[in-house]
């Protein structure tokens, strides 16, 4: 029985490559049924160990199932045409490319190990107010570097915990009185001229409530003569 240490896998492709290596499977002829089973058992183990199974692993499970289903389904082979694509091809290609970079990563790691034998000087230069030097320093900075630092600066900005609020002296009663005073001699107030007098968001909201209140009390009536036309408020006369 092989013990699998899940944290050693970099992802679903890595896990599949592990099965392939361990069981000496021909990468071009993967027994999908067997490997899917193995894969699902491993996912179950992960769940039992309370490891949150990453979406990537579940995504691969779905891919494996899909391939398995395609293989099981009778292919629609008309005549003797052999050009039906193997449903495993895309996965095999992905595994090969991933393995290629896994090896490349090892090679890079070796290079880093070799470089680790050498100790360069540790002095980091300060710019001495020397223009030529500072020119040198700035040369390697791209627009993206600037954008990156700007973003970091924004992220590091102190969180504002205190706000200064302006007290709005707006209430429904006074807004009703105000609106009433804006009606012209004919007892008409245009919606557009009402909006022009309102500045703050709160004022607009309260005015809306005030208009509703006036309509409900039967003091005003709302009219619109045509679709998308101007809305008019008509004064109906004082309530009793």
């Amino acid at each position, binding site marked *: 029985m092989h013990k699998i240490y899940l944290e050693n896998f*970099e*992802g*679903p*492709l*890595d896990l599949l*490559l592990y099965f*392939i*290596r361990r069981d*000496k499977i*021909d*990468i*071009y002829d993967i027994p999908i049924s067997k490997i899917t089973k193995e894969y699902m058992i491993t996912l179950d183990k992960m769940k039992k160990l309370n490891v949150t199974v*990453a*979406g*990537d692993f579940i995504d*691969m499970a779905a891919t494996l199932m899909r391939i398995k289903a395609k293989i099981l389904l009778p292919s629609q082979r008309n005549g003797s045409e052999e050009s039906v694509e193997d449903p495993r091809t895309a996965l095999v290609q*992905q595994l*090969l*490319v*991933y*393995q*290629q*970079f*896994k*090896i*490349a*990563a*090892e*090679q*890079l*790691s070796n*290079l*880093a190990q*070799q*470089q*680790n*034998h*050498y*100790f*360069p*000087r*540790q*002095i*980091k*230069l300060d710019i001495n107010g020397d223009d*030529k*030097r500072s*020119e*040198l320093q700035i040369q*390697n900075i*791209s627009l*993206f*570097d600037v954008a*990156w630092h700007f973003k970091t600066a924004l992220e590091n900005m102190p969180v504002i915990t205190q706000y200064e609020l302006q007290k709005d002296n707006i209430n429904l009663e006074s807004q009703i009185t105000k609106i009433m005073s804006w009606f012209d001699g004919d007892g008409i107030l245009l919606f557009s001229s009402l909006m022009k007098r309102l500045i703050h968001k709160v004022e607009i909201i309260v005015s809306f409530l005030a208009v509703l209140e006036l309509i409900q009390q039967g003091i005003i009536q709302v009219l619109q003569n045509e679709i998308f036309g101007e809305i008019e408020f008509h004064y109906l006369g004082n309530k009793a």
Partner: protein
Amino acid sequence: MQQKEQQLIIESLLFSTADPLTQKQLKFVFNSDPPDIQKIITELNNKYAKGGHSFYIRKIAGGYQITTKAEYEIWIHRLFKKNGQVMLSRASLETMAIVAYRQPISRYETESIRGVDCTGVLKTLLTNKLIRIQGRDSGPGRPLLYGTTKKFLENFGLNSISEIPKLKEISELSNSSN
């Protein structure tokens, strides 16, 4: 200026900085007619070899850097743990390799090769200045494209990006996996 003096000036520049010294930088030091750096480095290295020293000058990241010889590593390690190199996790190394060979490359392409989310790893590499944003793809969503930096070359002991080991051919891989 005497050749001997030029040699000593370049030696002092190498001594005073951690960053690799380039031919281009010499024009800021020598007002007119900067000397050929490669020639002077060879002379200096010959001098060090004759004199018997623990250090020499190495070509790295397109420039020259004074470093200790590899055989003194064990002694230096008794004093220092690190040499300023960034040590990478396997996930970071894989991502680093993909960016190095396929640059400029988007996060999406990197993820489709590795089969896992790469947001965090790319951010680590960016923070460590081993990769940088090279621009944006012209394709849908205009994703950011990543490429390697000078620090990447320094960290992996390369003189230029063309020195990275060749990717193994896919046919070789299938044999090795059997």
